């Protein structure tokens, strides 16, 4: 077996050095009746070529985004990632190192995390950010728990524009933790009265911007109303590129900002691994979940970085920790940080403008198409359309014509009576030809 270095003679020598007769002597603590004697009912090992053949066959049954006109979003976005990013994250010293518990020999990871935290804080308009969560949805659930700790209240209000799967993750954890959640109904036009939902028991309001239907939300009035009643505003985003063009949640007075960072530096990966971004105000830092890298000096007085404020974490605080999180999304954070360093402010703003310009073009083309209605007046790179008939069927028919045309709302909200809506994303990877093909095909099937 190519990954296992020992020869059988070496194994025998080692057993002799240990002072046992056979390998099974080392497994003697396993109750004899429960020890496996026969091999597992699984195939024997394969050569590298055979493994590649088997997995390539499976991969070949999937339609890759780059191979078709592609307009699917709703929490994960197809962007171009520079080749440099994937090369660098595959450097042995980044890819195959552990959590930086020995800072003297992990300064690369620690400095990268410090830079990442700073980039996330700047992008979100907040003061501090952590070293990442699993993804945007679990980060949102953690943000709700954090708000409960800060306000000592246990009721969260979820906007009807929050990604339905994010809402479901929050509801699942809250139900288990016996906290209250109020979910407002799906809000296609961003007309919900969030301010009216705040009462004296409300710990936090969770608002996504742009929301799942694509509408950018002005958070300022909601923030004011929250703060007047002692509640916190949690702002969520699923498209990090939007922050290159839209006002930051921090500038609109959010208290906790959490989002999905996949769209910068990371591939679609059929849903994971992704990257949870998490930022807040300095005054709440000790209630924040997750790891934090901080600056300090070494014994020779040189600048260096360490993991810090660990007393919040499970390995020290155990059942009193702010979260149970341990492993996070380190390598995805590195990909994000490298891509964002390459973009810089100039590149990010330009990328965001291109995304918006492409979406505006597509919206205008769709608005002219028969049988299609564009629901949004405002959007970033994603908006909602209404078609005649069942949207899921329309999407299937488009797929038959090799076009991945968006997400039918019924896939996310099966019983909401929104079966004729499709959420359509349009990023910098889409060309005029893609858009023309999409609109033409839609006219044929809708």
């Amino acid at each position, binding site marked *: 077996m190519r990954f296992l270095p020992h020869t059988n003679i070496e194994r025998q020598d080692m057993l002799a050095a240990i002072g046992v007769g056979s390998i099974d002597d080392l497994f003697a603590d396993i109750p004899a009746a429960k020890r496996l004697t026969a091999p597992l009912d699984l195939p024997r090992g394969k050569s590298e070529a055979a493994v590649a053949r088997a997995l390539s066959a499976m991969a070949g049954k999937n339609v890759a985004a780059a191979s078709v006109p592609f307009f699917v979003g709703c929490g994960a976005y197809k962007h171009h990632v520079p080749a440099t990013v994937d090369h660098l994250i595959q450097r042995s010293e980044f890819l195959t190192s552990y959590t930086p518990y020995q800072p003297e020999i992990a300064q690369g990871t620690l400095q990268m995390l410090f830079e990442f935290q700073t980039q996330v804080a700047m992008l979100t308009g907040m003061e501090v950010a952590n070293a990442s969560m699993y993804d945007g949805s679990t980060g949102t659930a953690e943000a709700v728990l954090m708000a409960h700790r800060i306000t000592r209240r246990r009721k969260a209000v979820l906007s009807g524009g929050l990604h339905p799967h994010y809402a479901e993750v929050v509801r699942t954890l809250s139900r288990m933790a016996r906290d209250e959640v109020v979910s407002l109904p799906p809000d296609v036009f961003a007309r919900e009265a969030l301010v009216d939902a705040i009462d004296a028991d409300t710990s936090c309001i969770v608002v996504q911007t742009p929301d799942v239907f694509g509408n950018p939300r002005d958070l300022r009035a909601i923030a004011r109303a929250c703060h007047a009643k002692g509640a916190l505003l949690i702002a969520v985003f699923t498209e990090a590129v939007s922050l290159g063009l839209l006002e930051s949640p921090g500038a609109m007075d959010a208290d906790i900002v959490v989002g999905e960072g996949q769209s910068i530096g990371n591939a679609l990966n059929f849903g994971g691994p992704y990257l949870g971004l998490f930022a807040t105000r300095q005054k709440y830092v*000790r209630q924040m979940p997750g790891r934090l890298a901080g600056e300090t000096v070494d014994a020779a007085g040189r600048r260096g970085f360490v993991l810090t404020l*660990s*007393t919040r974490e499970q390995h*020290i*605080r155990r059942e*009193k920790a702010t979260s149970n999180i341990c492993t996070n999304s380190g390598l995805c954070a590195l990909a994000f940080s490298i891509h964002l360093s390459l973009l810089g402010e100039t590149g990010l703003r330009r990328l965001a403008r291109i995304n918006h310009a492409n979406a505006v073009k597509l919206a205008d083309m769709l608005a002219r198409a028969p049988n299609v209605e564009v629901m949004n007046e405002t959007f970033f790179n994603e908006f909602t359309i209404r078609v005649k008939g069942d949207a899921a069927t329309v999407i299937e028919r488009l797929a038959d014509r090799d076009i991945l045309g968006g997400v039918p709302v019924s896939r996310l909200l099966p019983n909401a009576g929104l079966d004729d809506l499709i959420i359509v994303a349009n990023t910098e990877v889409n060309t005029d030809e893609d858009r023309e093909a999409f609109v033409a095909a839609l006219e044929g099937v809708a």
Partner: protein
Amino acid sequence: MSNTYYTRDHEYIRVDGDTGVVGVTDHAQHALGDIVYVELPEVGASFKRGDQVAVVESVKAASEVFAPVTGEVVAINGALEKEPGAVNEAPLDKGWFYKVRVADRAELDGLMDEAAYAAFLKTLA
């Protein structure tokens, strides 16, 4: 007659009239190592004897501080926020945590005096 009393969890309370100054002992600060953060109660809050009233953190550990007596918090040592190291330097002096209005002086009888605490520490060695 000393006016300072000690708990088995290494808190002290120094009583003057009906108020007491609460903190952790020199033994406690030594065992914790460099203290980096102290989470203090709010002024006006009331605690029963034995309630968790504060948290003291070193780099690698977090320990709860329990109220030595029942009563209302009348003052806290806000300086610890900027200078938690004061607990290491002078735990009984500038490293104090909070002042409490002692609700029931009889509770003091259940605590150790200086000699008893010194003897108690010897049993831990």
